[in-house]
């Protein structure tokens, strides 16, 4: 009897590990361990086929002398900063659409639409939209300013053109987060605030936004991650050009190690590690906040 009992109790102790095993092992194998391996590879000179030579921090030192690295880094900062505009823009559209008129559901879906489309297609759409001679935007700009600009061919504007393309689905994503948040606002609080004569911006700032904080947090997380992950659009729209001016770290790494001619595994790994380190700052912030919520729960 005693052994029977303890076996049932240890079943409860063992159970979580049995439930976890398949998913956690696969995740370790394909996600967690590779992170460590990449860090390791970044200390080597390796072409992906032959023998690897330990070169310590040389790859990182080389990065510091590489203009492409600085271009990529600068572009990443632009991505990050400008991508954050998606949050207020998404909020604005959500506020605009948060009404109950006929057909509003369809409007909401259609406004959300760009997020569902693959970034490859978004990239193609915007390439077409920006295309010199016949693209819609150069036409509009030509009409307004008198000169048609080939945005993606111009080093000054190309990165911003790509970021604008990326903002399109990202705004849609933030919008849907806020629409759900608005939907769940406690109407009594809004009414009470109305009795207190709060309206317009004061209402938004003091009553509505605090209740939208969870939505804002998620919007911030997905926007930061989305900005740093930017790869697809750069690859589709300019392939890093013109003259490498639209490279970001993720694309730079791809060029060095993964593309047809890229064989600098160690160097690419070092770029990835830098990108990862930047991301880690944000990941740590997010996790700290989530952890605090867990503790309070």
């Amino acid at each position: 009897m005693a052994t029977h009992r303890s076996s049932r109790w240890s079943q409860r102790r063992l159970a979580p590990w049995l439930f976890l095993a398949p998913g956690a092992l696969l995740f370790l194998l394909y996600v967690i361990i590779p992170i460590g391996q990449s860090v390791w590879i970044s200390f080597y000179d390796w072409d992906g086929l032959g023998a690897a030579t330990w070169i310590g921090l040389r790859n990182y030192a080389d990065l510091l002398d590489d203009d492409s690295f600085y271009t990529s880094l600068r572009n990443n900062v632009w991505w990050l900063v400008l991508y954050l505009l998606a949050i207020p823009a998404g909020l604005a559209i959500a506020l605009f659409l948060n009404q109950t008129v006929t057909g509003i559901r369809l409007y909401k879906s259609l406004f959300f639409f760009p997020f569902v489309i693959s970034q490859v297609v978004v990239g193609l759409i915007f390439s077409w939209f920006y295309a010199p001679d016949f693209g819609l935007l150069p036409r509009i700009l030509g009409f307004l300013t008198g000169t048609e600009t080939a945005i993606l061919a111009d080093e000054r504007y190309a990165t911003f053109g790509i970021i604008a393309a990326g903002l399109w689905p990202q705004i849609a994503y933030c919008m849907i987060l806020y629409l759900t948040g608005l939907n769940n606002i406690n109407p009594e609080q809004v009414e009470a605030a109305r009795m207190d004569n709060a309206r317009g911006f004061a209402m938004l700032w003091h009553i509505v936004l605090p209740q939208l904080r969870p939505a804002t947090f998620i919007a911030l997380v997905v926007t930061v991650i989305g900005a740093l992950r930017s790869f697809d659009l750069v690859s589709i729209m300019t392939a890093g050009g013109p003259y490498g001016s639209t490279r970001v770290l993720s694309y730079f790494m791809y060029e060095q190690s993964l593309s047809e001619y890229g064989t600098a595994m160690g160097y690419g790994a070092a770029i990835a590690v830098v990108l990862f380190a930047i991301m880690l700052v944000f990941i740590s912030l997010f996790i700290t906040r989530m952890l605090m919520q867990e503790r309070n729960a």
Partner: protein
Amino acid sequence: MADVTLRAITKSFGDVRIIKGIDLEIADGEFCVFVGPSGCGKSTLLRMIAGLEDITSGSLSIGGREMADVEPAGRGVAMVFQSYALYPHMTVRDNISFGLRMTGHKPADIEARLRRAADMLQLTHLLDRKPSQLSGGQRQRVAIGRAIVREPQVFLFDEPLSNLDAALRVQMRTEIGKLHADLRATMIYVTHDQVEAMTMAGKIVVLNAGAVEQAGSPLELYHRPRNLFVAGFIGSPRMNFVAGTAAPAAHGRIEVVLGDGARVLLDGRGATVTAAQPVTLGIRPEHLTAGGGGLRATVRLAEYLGSETMFYAQLADGSGIAVKADGLAKAAAGSTLDIGINPAACHLFDKDGVAVIHGDLTR
């Protein structure tokens, strides 16, 4: 035999000790009620008996078997949760029979038990509904049915009636009472409603801050509360407490001088006090009379309930006192009331709150 015995049971969550050493005997077939203020550890104690929380130290036995290492299902207990915990995706039938099916009972046996429980609880016509299609009282009965079919030796209820409206609560109270009479199983019932405790219990256990203040029959707790906490917790309306000093008087009696100088002479019943000992006099509102007494108070509020009148008055030292008077009694707010005290009904507590004299009218 399914008596439940707790010996020096403690429970800590992290560093915080929630249950502080509880000794308790619950006899086979007894209806035992745990009462106490919110957060005192009633649910925790019940869940420890169920095996849902492990015991930090001490020993628990059910029917003479030590339970510390026995998983919940092996303890012969069934539990009815406050939220009912009905499986929302299953019909009433499946809800009730789920545990039996999962533990390999024979279909015929399951069916028989299901019928019996459904009959007993008048659920037969509801068997094919989902919980969402039931009223609160019906859900409650399904939750009880789920406990019954397992034919446990001990039933555990955690505030099962708190989600029901007042009328339904009274009805379910009698139904659970009847169930106890029919099944003769040991039942442990948690509530913070002292009326529920008084009406249902064979034995009440008053808990406070993780410790037992007193355990006994409802009337024993009413007449002979061991301390201020129990005296204040059991009985509705609440017992009045008036501060004063006690001194020995002739013939073994004790004289209590209240704050405003009023004097009450109590039968000492063998208790001794020192001269000018600070005490608290406890007297229930129903043992006071409005008018004709020696305790002078100013009426602050009168509640005319028809069958009775409640006066809430203030003594000269500022302390409040409630008097339950005849339904025809009248006094305006602000008027003076001379309250009469029945000395035989007075409880006396020393400065630690421990009862020195019980105002037990049954003696």
